[in-house]
């Protein structure tokens, strides 16, 4: 359902079926809705068969990178020599993204079931769910759900009498965006400063506490029970565009649309349908100007690019951006693009962990230049400077935070150069006091 709105006919409701249904939060309510059947079924399967099933489904990481989930699981050692860990990334901090929050708020058992199946599949007995620190209600709901699952044998030392142990540990973040990066999250779980780690070693070799670890996004894990219940073929059939993008995707839409909210669509749905049909188009009398389709870290699309794109991993890339987390930030013709890009850059400058030189200094410098432009003191040379900095900040650091800061700057200058020019030429009133 297009929570908080009624479900739209063009949605494909799988993960979000019970959003807004308080009874689905309880163990009994979840079982009544067919819950935990997938876990019981999975416990009767071999680990290899589970991995193969998820591989065959075509499920890809929903956190942003889009890495095939089954393949990721298969990187874990076959023999469990050292403890294996599953980490569920619930640190949903990407600006414009609020889908995992709703999964945890309304269907905590959907996530717990997915975690349990995945943990079993990768040979882990412990699963950390790293919940964003600001998520108060989802935390409380998850807390209660884990307790209930334990009490009912869906978690614990002997899950549903199978003899298999699966424990879920809830870990609360402390407010750092970077802890949503998987290796920073591992450091944070270990009690260290949340700095991304250099790869290799990859998490499947040395992750949390140096042990083999798999990290999956909330939405990815929530999709797993459905794949186990209804089969890989069914999941694979949910595809309107490129066959490499299968299943459904929750889209968080915010900004200048009439009905912002979460929508669940089949991969390959035209973006136009999401923007105009499900979300009701721009506010009256306005037209769209730009869309950031995948959370703040991806390049900005123009209205034309967005209207032509199919909403799946490949379709968005074909139009010059990335699917990312599918947190869609929509901007209409009233938007000051320079201001919005500055606002994004400021966010990244604030959240940079300070390890890599390019990111630590580059994000802050980029912000200052944009501030200068907004204050009416920009220069023509600032274009080249911003693009030079962006190039130095792309592909050169441990994680992609600095790339994420550079992406909207580069795409913004490419696609909305006239707005920058207007500030530099003094044709537009300064939006900020001089710095």
């Amino acid at each position, binding site marked *: 359902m297009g929570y908080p709105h009624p479900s739209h006919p063009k949605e494909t409701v799988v993960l979000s079926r019970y959003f807004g249904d308080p009874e689905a939060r309880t163990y009994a309510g979840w079982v009544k809705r067919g819950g935990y059947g997938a876990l019981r079924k999975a416990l009767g399967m071999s680990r290899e068969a589970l991995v193969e099933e998820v591989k065959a489904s075509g499920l890809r990481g929903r956190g942003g990178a889009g890495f095939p989930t089954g393949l990721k699981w298969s990187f874990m050692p076959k023999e469990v020599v050292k403890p294996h860990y599953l980490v569920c990334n619930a640190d949903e901090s990407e600006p414009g993204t609020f889908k995992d929050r709703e999964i945890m708020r309304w269907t905590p058992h959907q996530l717990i079931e997915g975690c349990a199946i995945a943990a079993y599949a990768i040979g882990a007995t412990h699963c950390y769910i790293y919940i964003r620190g600001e998520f108060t209600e989802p935390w409380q709901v998850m807390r209660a759900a884990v307790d209930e699952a334990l009490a009912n044998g869906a978690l614990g030392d002997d899950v549903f009498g199978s003899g298999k142990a699966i424990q879920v540990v809830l870990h609360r973040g402390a407010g750092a965006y970077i802890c949503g990066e998987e290796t920073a999250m591992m450091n944070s779980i270990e009690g260290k400063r949340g700095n991304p780690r*250099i790869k290799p070693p990859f998490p499947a070799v040395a992750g949390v506490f140096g042990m083999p670890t798999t990290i999956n996004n909330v939405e990815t894990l929530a999709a797993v029970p459905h794949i186990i219940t209804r089969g890989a073929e069914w999941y694979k059939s949910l595809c309107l565009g490129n066959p490499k993008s299968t299943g459904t995707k929750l889209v968080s839409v915010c900004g200048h649309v009439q009905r912002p909210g979460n929508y669940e669509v089949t991969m390959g749905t035209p973006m136009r349908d999401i923007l105009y049909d499900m979300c009701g188009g721009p506010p009256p009398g306005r037209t769209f100007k730009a869309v950031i389709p995948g959370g703040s870290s991806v390049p900005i699309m123009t209205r034309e690019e967005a209207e032509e794109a199919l909403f799946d991993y490949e379709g968005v890339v074909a139009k010059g951006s990335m699917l990312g987390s599918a947190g869609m930030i929509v901007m209409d013709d009233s938007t000051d693009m320079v201001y919005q890009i500055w606002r994004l850059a400021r966010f990244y400058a604030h959240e940079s*962990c300070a390890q890599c*030189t390019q990111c630590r200094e580059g994000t802050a410098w980029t912000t200052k230049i944009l501030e200068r432009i907004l204050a009416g003191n920009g220069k023509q040379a600032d274009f080249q400077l911003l693009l030079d900095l962006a190039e*130095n900040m792309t592909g050169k650091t441990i994680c992609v935070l600095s790339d994420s800061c550079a992406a909207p700057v580069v795409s913004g200058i490419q696609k909305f150069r006239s707005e920058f020019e207007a500030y530099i030429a003094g044709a537009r009133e300064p939006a900020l006091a001089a710095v």
Partner: protein
Amino acid sequence: MADELVNVTIDGVPVAVPKGTAIIEAAKQAGVLVPHYCYHPSLPAPAVCRMCLVEVEKSPKLMPACVTTVTEGQVVHVNSDPAKKAREGVLEFLLINHPLDCPICDQSGECELQDYVFQEGRAGTRYSEFAKRYNPVEDFGPDILYVPNRCILCTRCVRFMEDVADTPVLNVSERGDRAFIGIDQSQRLDHPWSGNVVDLCPVGSLLSKDFLHKARAWDLDKTASVCPGCTQGCNITIDTRDDVVVRLRPRPNLEVNRHFMCDYGRMNYRWLNRGDRVEAPLIREGGRHVATDWDSALARLDQAVRGATGSAVILASGRASVESLGLVRRLVERPRVTAAIQVPLGDEAPLAGVPNLALRRERVPNLAGAELLGYGTAWEAAMREVLSAGLVVVLDADLSPADEAALAAAPGVVVVLGTVATDGLRNAQLVLPVTTMAEENGTYVNRDRRIQRYHQARSQPGMARPAWWIAGEVLAGPGPSPDAPATAEEAFALVGAAWPVFAGLSYADLGFTGRVLADGRPAVVGAAR
């Protein structure tokens, strides 16, 4: 692992290196220095400065050379355009908040930021108009100042304290461009090995208060030496300015001290600059000491040694070289000789992350060497022997008032080979000026029986000579003689002739990192964790 070699080509130079070697180390073997800041061979590599990005063929992105290991057939370009452009970018980013106060910075002249910017940075800034980040100077510890404005956040200091010293008092505080090196507010940077963070700091951000504003790097003369502070035998560099020792720093020796030295050793240099030195041979005549020339002094010493009957006692400093201890011992050869060295004791202070590296209890550099040459450590017993000996030779020992009283009461001939002469030595028949370890060449044997050379770092005061020269001249007989050792190496050969454990070794064999003597324990200083 060490046996398996991998062939790589770095900037056109083919090299074979052990499997698992990082590109940055392989490049050293190819004679290519990959510019870097956060990487240090004795610390874990975090790959955060991004300065060592190099182009690796078939790799889509530039790779950090410090953590990327070699693979067979790999072709690496350190000085290609993409790699140089990336480094230029890093340098530009590092400089935007850097104060560029090189004219008043202690690090200037030995600063890796300065060096690399001159080598391949941009000539001008594009950061004009913006204020630079400012944080006040902080007092981190007894000898350490932190200048945050110059900091490039390479985190070497944080990693040293955490991973090597096992005392994590430093951290990276704050995030983004507000970040700085923080210190646990309840603690000081006063670990016995904390001075190493000053050496590790590639810029002028961590400074030694002791060295503050003392000298410009380009005014310093550097001499390879061995720390005289304890039996560990850390390899050091003695920095002198205008013949004055101003600083001791560790010199890498992976088998003794890796890249480190302790604060005790580091600060133990002022005695090398003493102004109250004996500068001429003194002969006791008419109840007082009068200066003379070496010919007369040596003749008098020869007389004294020959003329003295009965037993002999040598009271030596543990800082005396193998050469001096050996030849002085030979000089007094007779049926009954008691030879002892002074060994002051202190608390042991290990460096947790490096096995077998510690400030040792025995605070002398040549205990093992002295023992191999027949010296004992029973100082009190030796002092009692003084009261019945026919000949007493004092070799630069630090004498207590009681020791001096005993020497004053000695019935035999007292000869002092010393650096300073106190009133208590007024009864000595001869006081001959000798050099300190900073004023001579020589060797020490450390606790693992590694024999290591040290080199002359400053000129000797007045007529002071190494003790081995004095003893060697007398042993060779009066007048010019080809048997008298003219150099420390010749003296070492004479020692080798008398003590087989030193035989067959030349100074060239010892090189700059020393050799473990036969039957010596193998070095077991381990890698940093």
